[in-house]
């Protein structure tokens, strides 16, 4: 085999520049895209041809394929090569192979891609740390350092060994069935679970052991010619299906909740038979029983919740988290996260079309001192850069607009970042044959067809891994890189096949791979059999259990009627999508897996899905624990001052705080307009700098009624978890609801999604905090339920991630703040759109509120000044009062009385006013009532409050409608100044330019 090395250099001056490698000095560098290609008989003339036909552009690039070309490389430079470890998805290489096959279809090509970085005038030691941190991740990349004078580098175009692409790997394990003996001691059972990464506890291992030792089961297995104990395939399938990730054992657990008599907000001792049943499903049932028009269609059993939009279409919404993988490889983790939730939507009902993405990140503070960070962790700055790029590539390359999101910064997210990825989809009410869009019909005899990528060892144990704590031994095979291009082809193909009625229903291959997708679809008919030896593979040597649980990406499992099979497979071929018939749905009662015809697993569905023993948890609440810093040197912590009345300084601090600062630069890197339906965009105003509270998507282009639209937004307030997660949950719901109200959403049509990310609430020797975390969880669920019922907004879908702890090698524990993300989707119309930026000079500015209480403790200003006194603490609020106000505001928006609306959130009312002023590029003059407490009035954070501007003409009507809820604060004025006066004293006088400069903070992103 001849291997050719191809280097694509940018011509002089185009991109050579400097690169910030963190603490190492800024190095002057060049970046070169490189490839290895392998083919038996590549002629020199052919090589010349493909240089500029495939690899480079004559105007921009210089493509090198040999060492004798006159390349100016100085001997003293350092050459760093960053490629992929084998088994890791290499998207460029796949396209190189496709491109070469286009040019020479008769030959077989193999390729791999890598990057070459050249650093001028430096030593390896200087850049090494930076390279490992910024250019490559040793979990997925191979990284080599060479000096340009090294023979290795000089001769790099010759003597190349065979490419280590996937096909060369032959995994050592053979493909025979292995029986796993569970007839062993408890200690050995635990060891089996640990060493196989099963994440099963002793009780669960016992349940499996007892099941297989049962007389009836063993008799049947003898008849079936299977070993008495479980096969490795069976054990792995059970572990995937029973994982916390798939079965939500904590949310189904029996919980004994107690609270001490002196706690601030008493909720009452109680025994909870499943938080999910009681407070999530329970809330929705209650809401459905009291709401006027029940718009819910399909809840709690499909991949996503479905609600009705109009007479033509339904809407499916799902939000997922991908925290663990994003902590190990931020780019790959987030990319697979967003592509995964896109597939969830695609796998909902008969197949929904993704029309919008939403993403929320919670990461450590960007100024976290390097020396305080445990050495095995990636710095939050790099985490943010990677996850942002992952979500960006995932959305942009799939043609799905990223319309909404948030970034939250807090020290304790250093241990594990939270990456929430959400998608909204549209599915027709009925297909051409009159089959309901939300239905999931699978009949006996239908074929099991796997569609999408081939299977490799990537992502094995993803589901069970996410059910474990992140530690230094976390498996790298759980890390994957998604392939948005392949998935886009799959997506287009499936929607085309759906509209041709070529299949019945489908689901995605996510956590647990085929074991979960087929195992679950099998319940529709009561059985399924697949032969994994038919699955297309990336390389040989994969054992049956690996094939069944691999989470190789971009795959869907589809139920196809035998009479449509040929047409379905032919369409797939023409759309360049892999589709393979791997089995059949039946009513045997078993999920059976074969390999080359031989049965390697046969598990009764009843045991697989309902056999998992119920977990029991203790939860005890005695008020919030004192938070302890994990910094080695406490003096690295930010010091808080006492507030001395400098309002200008306080405002500048709030505006510059990363949680408040504008993220425009990174948000504009997302395509938020593709599909041509984003009518209220993330930004508004004269210069496009004003931040809207959410986005509005026009549904007409998606098959809805002419002026139909949905408003989407989110809410989270994790810092309140430090005091009381009950309030945290209620405030999060309010923020999400209020955000959609602020962009014109209908308060009587709001659907909510709940996504919990929690530190481990299960008590063990290593996790003594269990009962406290469990109590926090119970309190947040009660808060969530109350708010959902109070706002009459059903919870239509949700997910939980319960192991967000990190333990460093030096013994430090970092747990995330208990965090509940609420996503809200509401209905609106293109006739009642409103944005956040001030519009006209002379408009009156009002604070409109339900007289809800304000707080400073745990707010933005609390990060700089000491507000620990109890008078500053957050308090409970009335959801019902808020809802009444939201209905009035909605009616004022519909009557077009309002010029702009902004919700009061992080940083309080004044930062909301400043943001609207920056958006409108207009000055503001505020006069606070003499009796007010300016500190709370300006910086207090609260539920149920908005900053609304109204033209002079409409002010009378507006004031009549809103009554005492609207308090005039001042007006929009010409010029460039923000002034606040209270009791004849000027508290704030700052120029818009200065505030804007502080707030936009380009250098951070």
């Amino acid at each position, binding site marked *: 085999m001849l291997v050719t090395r191809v280097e694509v250099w940018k011509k002089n001056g185009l991109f050579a520049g400097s690169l910030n490698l963190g603490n190492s000095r800024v190095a002057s560098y060049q970046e070169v895209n490189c490839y290895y290609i392998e083919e038996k008989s590549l002629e020199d003339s052919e090589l010349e041809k493909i240089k500029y036909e495939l690899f480079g552009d004559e105007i921009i690039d210089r493509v090198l394929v040999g060492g004798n070309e006159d390349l100016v490389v100085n001997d003293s430079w350092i050459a760093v090569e960053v490629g992929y470890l084998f088994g890791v998805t290499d998207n460029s290489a796949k396209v190189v192979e496709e491109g070469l096959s*286009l040019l020479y279809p008769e030959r077989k090509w193999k390729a791999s891609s890598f990057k070459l970085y050249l650093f001028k005038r430096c030593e390896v030691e200087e850049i090494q740390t930076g390279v490992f941190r910024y250019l490559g991740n040793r979990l997925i990349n191979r990284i080599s350092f060479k000096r340009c004078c090294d023979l290795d580098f000089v001769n790099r175009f010759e003597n190349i060994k065979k490419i280590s692409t996937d096909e060369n790997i032959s995994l050592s394990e053979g493909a025979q069935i292995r029986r796993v003996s569970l007839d062993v001691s408890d200690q050995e059972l635990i060891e089996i679970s640990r060493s196989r990464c099963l994440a099963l506890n002793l009780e669960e291992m016992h349940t499996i052991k007892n099941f297989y030792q049962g007389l009836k089961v063993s008799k049947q297995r003898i008849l079936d010619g299977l070993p008495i104990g479980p096969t490795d395939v069976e054990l792995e399938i059970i572990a995937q299906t029973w994982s916390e990730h798939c079965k939500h054992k904590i949310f189904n657990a029996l919980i004994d909740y107690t609270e001490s008599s002196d706690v601030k907000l008493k909720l009452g001792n109680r025994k909870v038979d499943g938080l999910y049943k009681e407070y999530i499903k329970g809330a929705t049932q209650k809401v459905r029983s009291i709401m006027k028009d029940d718009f819910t269609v399909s809840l709690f059993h499909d991949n996503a919740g479905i609600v009705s939009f109009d007479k033509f279409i339904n809407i499916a919404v799902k939000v997922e988290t991908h925290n663990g993988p994003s902590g190990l490889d931020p780019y790959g983790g987030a990319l697979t996260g967003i592509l995964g939730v896109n597939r969830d939507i695609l796998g909902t009902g008969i197949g929904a079309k993704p029309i919008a993405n939403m993403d929320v990140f919670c990461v450590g503070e960007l100024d976290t001192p390097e020396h305080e960070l445990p050495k095995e962790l990636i710095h939050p700055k790099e985490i943010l850069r990677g996850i942002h790029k992952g979500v960006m590539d995932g959305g942009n390359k799939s043609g799905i607009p990223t319309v909404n999101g948030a970034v939250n910064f807090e020290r304790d997210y250093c241990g594990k970042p939270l990456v929430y990825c959400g998608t909204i989809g549209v599915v027709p009410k009925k297909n051409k044959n009159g089959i309901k869009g939300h239905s999931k019909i699978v009949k006996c005899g239908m074929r099991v067809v796997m569609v999408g990528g081939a299977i490799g060892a990537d992502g094995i144990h993803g589901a069970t891994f996410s059910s474990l704590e992140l530690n230094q031994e976390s498996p790298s095979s759980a890390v994957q890189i998604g392939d948005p291009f392949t998935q886009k082809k799959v997506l287009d193909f499936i929607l085309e096949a759906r509209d041709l009625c070529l299949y019945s229903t489908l689901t995605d291959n996510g956590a647990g791979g085929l074991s979960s997708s087929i195992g679950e679809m099998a319940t529709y008919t009561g059985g399924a059999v697949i032969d994994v030896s038919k699955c297309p593979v990336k390389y040989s040597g994969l054992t049956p259990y690996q094939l069944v649980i691999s989470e190789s990406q971009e795959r869907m499992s589809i139920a196809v009627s035998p009479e449509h099979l040929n047409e379905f497979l032919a369409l797939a071929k023409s759309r360049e999508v892999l589709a393979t018939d791997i089995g059949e749905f039946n009513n045997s009662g078993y999920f059976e897996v074969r390999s080359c015809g031989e049965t390697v697993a046969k598990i009764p569905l009843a045991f697989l899905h309902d056999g998992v023993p119920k977990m029991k948890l203790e939860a005890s609440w005695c008020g919030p624990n004192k938070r302890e810093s994990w910094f080695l040197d406490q003096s690295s912590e930010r010091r808080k001052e006492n507030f001395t009345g400098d309002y200008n300084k306080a405002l500048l601090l709030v505006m510059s705080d990363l949680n408040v600062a504008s993220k425009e630069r990174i948000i504009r890197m997302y395509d938020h*307009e593709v599909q041509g339906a984003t009518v209220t965009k993330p930004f508004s105003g004269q210069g496009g700098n004003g931040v809207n509270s959410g986005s509005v998507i026009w549904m007409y282009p998606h098959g809805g009624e002419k002026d139909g639209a949905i408003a989407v937004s989110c809410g989270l307030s994790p810092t309140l978890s430090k005091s009381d997660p009950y309030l945290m949950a209620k405030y999060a719901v309010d923020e999400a609801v209020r955000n959609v109200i602020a962009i014109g959403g209908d308060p009587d049509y709001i659907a909510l999604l709940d996504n919990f990310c929690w530190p481990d609430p299960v008590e063990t020797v290593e996790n003594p905090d269990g009962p406290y975390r469990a109590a926090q969880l119970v309190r947040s669920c009660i808060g969530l339920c109350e708010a959902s019922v109070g706002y009459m907004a059903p919870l239509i879908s949700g997910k939980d991630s319960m192991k967000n702890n990190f333990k460093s090698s030096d013994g430090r524990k970092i747990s995330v703040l208990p965090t509940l993300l609420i996503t809200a989707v509401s209905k609106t119309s293109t006739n009642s759109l409103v944005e956040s930026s001030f519009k006209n000079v002379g408009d009156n500015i009002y604070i409109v509120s339900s007289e809800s209480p304000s707080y400073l403790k745990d707010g933005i200003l609390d990060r700089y000044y000491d507000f620990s006194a109890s008078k500053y603490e957050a308090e409970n609020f009335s959801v019902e009062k808020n809802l009444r106000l939201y209905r009035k505001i909605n009616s004022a928006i519909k009557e077009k009385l309002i010029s702009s609306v902004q919700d009061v959130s992080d940083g309080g009312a004044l930062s909301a006013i400043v943001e609207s002023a920056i958006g409108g590029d207009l000055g503001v003059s505020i006069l606070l009532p003499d009796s007010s407490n300016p500190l709370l009035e300006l910086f207090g954070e609260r539920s149920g409050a908005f900053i609304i501007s109204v033209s002079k003409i409409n002010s009378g009507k507006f004031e009549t409608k809103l009554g005492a809820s609207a308090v005039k604060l001042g007006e929009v004025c010409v010029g460039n100044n923000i002034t606040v006066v209270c009791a004849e004293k000027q508290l704030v006088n700052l120029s818009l330019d200065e505030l804007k400069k502080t707030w936009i903070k380009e250098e951070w992103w």
Partner: protein
Amino acid sequence: MKFIILCGVGINCENESAQALSSVGIDSKIVHVNDLIEKRVILNSYAGLVIPGGFSYGDELGSGRVLALKIKKYLMDEINEFILNGRPILGICNGFQVLEKLGVFNFNDNDTVYDFSLTHNKNREFVDKWTLLKVDHSVKSAWTNFSSEQIYLPIRHGEGRVVFRNAECGFAKFAEKKLIPLYYQSDVNGSDGNVAAVIDKSGMVLGMMPHPECATFCEHSVKINHQIRNDGKMFFESVKRYLS
């Protein structure tokens, strides 16, 4: 009058392109590139062609490159015939990149070939924002026969920087030959001469980085100086007038 809108292999703006055409009364059919290659649909029985935006082949190896390779191999004769027959082609964003890689904008003058390339924006970042453009009406094209001289359109690209071979004289030559109908009013991506769009010498083929199809309906508009702008519609109205 029916147009073909290309789809598949990572193209992703086909639906809004169809909606934009239909807003001016032009019917269209969204066709997978393989259906053209495998002759299930015949290009030359249609009145016009739109190659929409997207990320064909994931933008690997440079945006538009591999799709252009595919078209060159299987469809180039048909495309050339299409142009010869005076049928209009519009390439938007990724579609522009594909047309550029196909070389349809290149021309020969005094034995010198003049061409350009589209590459990564100067700051190497993808950007989505509405931007002000200047229309040069001395440039005659089926797609830009309207009167507005300043228009607002969204740009959404990471590889929209026009780089001419021999920067100075290349740009001057394209301008002199009246092949540049649109300029950015400010430097948005580092393009030579702030070039935002190029036409071929017949005036039937327009390649543009901004997205007119996403600025066709009033609902699409960002509000600039309180105005609703759906300037993108003018391109489609222009081609309709041309063909009527």
